[in-house]
């Protein structure tokens, strides 16, 4: 194959793929006028869904960071022969169909399932069909994205730099706070924003585990799912809003990673 033909083939395939990705997004944006968008945003159902989504996605992201950051650090520091297997297991939910993740959550936390009776004995309310279930579903599906990003960011900190800190008199906690976190911060922030965007768009696991109760567990994606049957304009408006929020998060993530916008 000549270089010219190769260049043409590259551009053609890349253009087809980029078009395939851009076309649905463009269709959404073309379908929504500012007037319909403003009208939809005045609907209480839409606002409740937006509020719940923003709140649960933020809570899920913070909880993921709190748990997955230490986990990523341990996985980076500890060299065990189980590390590969453990990492695969921890990242598996991101590769599973969300419905499978939702079913797993139901079987783990459902009232009469694995942990349900124990939670009841401890006087805790059932988790399924509550906003807590929305957060758990988002954590399970979006968490692996942060874990992967955090591991990459932490592994990029040169070991000699950590050793320099130790020799200069800093303990492990001080080194983590003063050296590791600042050096890994762009990667960690980028990972958190991508996780937040993914949590915001989570649908399958949420529907199965948290249900779709307006004002209680109905997130933006669940609202789009049901509104599409009855009010297409509202569904499109919600979709455009979700699209803009996700795009904003991804652009910010790129900015955090020091990439050109």
């Amino acid at each position: 194959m000549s270089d010219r033909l190769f260049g043409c083939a590259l551009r053609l395939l890349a253009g087809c793929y980029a078009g395939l990705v851009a076309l649905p997004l463009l269709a959404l944006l073309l379908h929504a006028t500012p007037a319909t968008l403003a009208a939809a945003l005045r609907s209480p159902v839409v606002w409740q869904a937006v509020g719940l989504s923003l709140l649960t996605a933020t809570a899920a992201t913070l909880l993921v960071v709190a748990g997955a950051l230490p986990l990523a650090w341990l996985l980076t520091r500890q060299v065990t022969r189980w590390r590969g297997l453990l990492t695969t297991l921890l990242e598996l939910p991101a590769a599973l169909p969300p419905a499978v993740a939702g079913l797993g959550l139901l079987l783990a936390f459902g009232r009469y399932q694995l942990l349900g009776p124990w939670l009841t004995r401890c006087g805790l309310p059932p988790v399924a069909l509550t906003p807590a279930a929305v957060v758990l579903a988002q954590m399970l599906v979006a968490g692996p994205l942060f874990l992967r990003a955090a591991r990459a960011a932490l592994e990029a900190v040169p070991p000699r730099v950590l050793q320099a800190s130790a020799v200069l008199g800093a303990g492990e906690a001080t080194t983590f706070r003063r050296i590791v976190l600042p050096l890994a911060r762009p990667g960690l922030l980028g990972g958190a924003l991508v996780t937040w965007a993914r949590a915001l768009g989570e649908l399958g696991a949420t529907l199965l585990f948290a249900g779709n109760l307006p004002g209680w567990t109905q997130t933006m994606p669940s609202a789009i799912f049901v509104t599409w049957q009855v009010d297409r304009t509202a569904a499109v408006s919600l979709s455009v809003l979700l699209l803009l929020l996700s795009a904003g998060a991804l652009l910010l993530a790129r900015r955090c990673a020091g990439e050109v916008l």
Partner: protein
Amino acid sequence: MSELRAHLRLRRGAWQLELEFALDGHTALVGPNGSGKTTVLDLLTGLAAPDQGAVWVAGDCVLDTARRLALPPARRRLGYVFQDAALFGHLSVAQNVGYGPAVGHGAAAQVDELLGQFELTELAARRPLELSAGERQRVAVARALAAEPRWLLLDEPFAALDVAARPLLRARLLATLEVRGVPALLVTHDAEEAFGLGGEVLVLEAGRLVEQGPAERLAASPSSAFGAALAQSNHYRGQVVASPAPGQAVVQVASLRWTVPTPAAVGVPLALVVPPAEVLLATAPPATSARNQVVGVVAAVQCTAAGCRVTVQGAVRITALVTPAALQELGLAVGSPAVALFKVSAVKIC
């Protein structure tokens, strides 16, 4: 000056490190690549753990595997300058130098003084990425000293520097160490650095100390292959072909046969070192008690304050260290026929 004493044993697959030393002043640690020099520094500072061993710094035991004692690196108070500087990229030069005091090691007041001593005051606000290789190493040395270490360990700190910058930083480092009374253990490949440190030289080969002594003695009369290469001494490989007398062997080196002081049996391969100071020069084969000689022509003459190094190319290449007066008396110049001679006792077996 505080003493640094250690005995260490470490096995990694087929490779093994086993050594023991007691240092009480500036020391250069030299050896070929893969001999374990950096590993020794890592073991001393606690960045790696030996299978067996103990380390004392100024009388304090910081590691003793027999007692299951292993202080973490943060509590050993040993400074370490890495080959690649390992600066903190998110901190300014001043914050890098002040890191030790900021985490409780060393006085913050001396940070400005160190920045001045290493000509970093103008660069204090810069980030490491904005610095040259030489500037980065100056920051690394100042940073290590700001934590007030009892010893400063340096892993080829001048390797990334250009030839002109090396002597400047070396001189500045030595002056600062002198003022602060901090002894240094310097890993280097450079003869000038090893001998210029003015203390002991340790030669490490394949995880073992094969030679140890004052720099002057090692420079004049090395007894190991690497020490010889470092001191630009004459080193050869040969094989024993005869045993003419007890404690002596005839060794075939290229087409030459030399008598050397060893009881090694016929067939044994040997590495020999002949210090240039032990080699005599003549214009023709003389009647002498020296048993070993190389007949050839003068290939190079290099005169310095230490004397003239005259290299004779015959069946092998051999360098003699003679005085300028002797050189003039013999009338030797490049291209002149010459004979290099040395006694049996001048040969060192590695």
